[in-house]
């Protein structure tokens, strides 16, 4: 049955019927669910989230034509693996921003520009998104980031350096920052 299902997802893609393709990817933090539209990577589901709920959410917000099609995500999976091995510092993937709107999208685009191994404060992100006083909204934008890791919201800290929050849990945020050499892991 596996071959038939793969043939089906290939044909669906060719005929423009594959609106959301997804795959499960291993990571040092647990399984990730990644999803792409024809436009680009649209979702990275962290291990803390229920993949079934994530798929239902994608079906509701983008299209119910959601199929498991790992071949469509080979490139994203390869880059994520390299990133977790510390061998890739900048993702080169087309992104689909459609799950974020307005201020949040502007905030996430600002976050996307934070280089590997650097951090910004929530205040700086709020300013980049066009409203310096919207610090809390900048935090919310991070929390609602549909494409974490690739859009590196783990690089956003409180003014003064406290970790703030993370959808994947603070230990994951800390580990990512240690891996990038931002935080000492001696402590």
């Amino acid at each position, binding site marked *: 049955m596996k071959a038939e299902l793969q043939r*089906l997802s290939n044909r669906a893609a060719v005929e423009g019927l594959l609106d959301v393709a997804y795959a499960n990817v291993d990571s040092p933090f647990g399984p990730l669910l990644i999803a792409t539209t024809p436009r680009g990577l649209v979702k990275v589901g962290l291990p803390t989230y229920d993949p079934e709920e994530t*798929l239902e959410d994608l079906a509701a917000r983008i299209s*119910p034509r959601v199929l498991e099609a790992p071949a469509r995500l080979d490139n994203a999976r390869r880059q994520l693996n390299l990133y977790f091995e510390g061998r890739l510092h900048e993702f080169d993937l087309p992104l689909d921003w459609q799950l974020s709107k307005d201020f949040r999208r502007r905030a996430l685009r600002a976050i996307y520009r934070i280089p590997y191994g650097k951090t910004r404060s929530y205040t700086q992100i709020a300013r980049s998104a066009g409203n310096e006083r919207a610090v809390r909204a900048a935090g919310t934008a991070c929390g609602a980031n549909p494409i974490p890791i690739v859009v590196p919201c783990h690089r956003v800290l409180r003014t003064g350096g406290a970790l703030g929050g993370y959808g994947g849990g603070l230990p994951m945020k800390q580990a990512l920052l240690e891996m990038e050499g931002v935080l000492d892991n001696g402590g």
Partner: protein
Amino acid sequence: MTQLPPFQALLDEHAADVMAVLRGAVGRGDAEDCFQETFLAALRAYPKLSDDGNLRGWLLTIAHRKAIDHHRANGRRPLPISDPDELSGATAEPELDDGIWALVGALPPKQRAAVALRYACDLPHAEIAAALGCSPDAARRSLHEGIKRLRKELA
């Protein structure tokens, strides 16, 4: 209307049954093509589906239509239901032995489909009806007529 589930959920739950029905209806060799046609048609129509109450019945209905299309395209060849062991989830009743599937294959289309869906796929009458696009009573009658004819052939 409730939210449509991700299409993958339909595949996970029903792909094996759809394949079994198609193997029963068009034979193992052609089932794969009908399977692709069935799910591509389903995928095409899915976002506009207004009644998601019986997704399994909906898929089986499409499969049935694709099997009919296939038979039309092939000029109504006799149906090769040959080996019930090839049908996944097959739970043939004790009185339906291997050789009988050749006789099932010779039944008229509706009776043949009803018998295959009931005994090869273990579907209840309501789902046979959904797959055949008829009422449960009509499905029951087709099944009954099919069985009666088989008994006669075997007597």
